[in-house]
């Protein structure tokens, strides 16, 4: 069965990601040289930047898969978007936790309206909206389309948000801002960063595939139950009210509220 293949790929990628992340932590704590001006707090950079990269990568997948889902209507595309959104939300949260932890030492304040930090916060809220729409929409098929629309509209607005928050900062200069990542990064630091980027990307792909496999199974179970086909469980009750998502055969004629 193809779910088996997805599970194996998820285990391999996720396993490599976990190993890489452990190795990354060893590099961060024991190997990489300490940055001259900021001291040891700069080491959080190797967690922070890869997380941000994955957060935006995931959002790209959400928007792209959502757009193609609206076009082709293939359920797997919606499950792809959902899986990417859940992984992306985790990494966006990591960015938002590690950023202020670093900033309080480097800049002397937990929060500043640094453009990239602001953009990440807004991204987090766009993800939040995505999940709220998915969870609270009454018609399960509509929930998938609504979520795709939220993902696409968020993605087309992100460049404009980015430009505007950058411009706003240039309007109100903040002299405390230090550039952690200059173009003259020490080769050891660059290597550590690359290991971080690679490990987090693998870790994300592992989580993403795992979640995708779960979403496919949920869908198949709901589909079989709705068809009344014998389920592999011994007492396959066809009227299980706890079906997570309704299959397509439930009918497009979903009752509008009243």
């Amino acid at each position, binding site marked *: 069965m193809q779910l088996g293949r997805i599970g194996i790929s998820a285990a391999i990628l996720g396993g490599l990601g976990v190993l890489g992340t452990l190795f990354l932590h060893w590099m961060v704590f024991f190997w990489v040289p300490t940055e001259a001006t900021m001291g040891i707090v700069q080491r959080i950079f190797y967690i922070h930047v890869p997380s941000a990269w994955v957060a935006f990568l995931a959002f790209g997948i959400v928007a792209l898969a959502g757009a193609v889902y609206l076009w082709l209507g293939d359920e797997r595309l919606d499950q792809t978007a959902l899986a990417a959104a859940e992984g992306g939300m985790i990494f966006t949260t990591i960015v938002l936790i590690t950023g202020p932890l670093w900033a309080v030492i480097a800049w002397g304040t937990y929060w500043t309206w640094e453009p990239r930090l602001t953009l990440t916060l807004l991204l987090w809220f766009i993800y939040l909206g995505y999940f709220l729409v998915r969870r609270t929409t009454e018609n399960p098929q509509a929930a998938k389309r*609504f979520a795709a629309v939220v993902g696409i509209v968020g993605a087309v607005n992100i460049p404009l948000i980015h430009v505007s928050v950058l411009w706003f900062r240039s309007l109100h200069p903040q002299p405390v801002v230090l550039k952690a990542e200059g173009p003259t990064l020490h080769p050891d630091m660059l290597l550590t960063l690359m290991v971080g980027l690679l490990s987090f990307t693998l870790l994300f792909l592992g989580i993403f595939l795992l979640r995708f496999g779960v979403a496919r199974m949920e869908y198949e179970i709901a589909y079989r139950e709705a068809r009344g086909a014998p389920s592999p469980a011994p007492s396959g009750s066809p009227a299980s009210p706890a079906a997570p998502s309704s299959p397509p055969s439930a009918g497009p004629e979903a009752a509008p509220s009243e």
Partner: protein
Amino acid sequence: MRGYLGQLSAIVWKDLVVELRTKERILSMGGFTVLVGVLFNYGLDRSVVRPQDLAAGWIWVTIVFTGVLGLGRTFEMERSEGALRGVLMSPVPRDAIFLAKVLSNFVLTMLAAILVFAIFGLFFDLSFGSHPLVLLAVVATGTLGFTSLGTLYSGVTAGTTMGDTLLPILVFPLLVPMVIYGVTATAGLFAGLPVSEVSGNLRMLMAFALITTFAGAGLFRFIVEE
């Protein structure tokens, strides 16, 4: 093209007539605006801060809040009465329905925005600068983008159990460009800057309005699909 515009204006007309007869949204948005002005008055110490210095930001935030109040109800009546199905079954393209909804919402939100300026000007003795038409263009462009986003997303929230309480969470993150450029342009005009100083902001607001309106017109059919 003529048929398209005719269909579009028929829906706009219908919405505005319904609004004029029920006055639900006009009254709640208007009352909200005046009362926010009253509350703001007690939210600051005039011996320390000049209202003129804060006015541009207050005005835009109030426009956003009162706008969300009205936009959240775009599809309320039609959903509950089942009339949306009637509109959808008419031989009108989906994007025309969307643009018509945006236009009728735009008229309402612009009325509210003008009321915000009038009330705040009266309450706080503001000076609006010497380019009222440019100011109007700034407010109208920002409001158009905001209305497009709000109209699209109110179609989404109407289908959720959270209803219009979900609307701000969906819309506000995307309003950052509008608030940044709108407030900067408005503050500049209030301070008497020449028009050339704010034209860049106006262009960015136009970009925002174009992106949101086109995205909404293209995606609306997936919102109302049954």
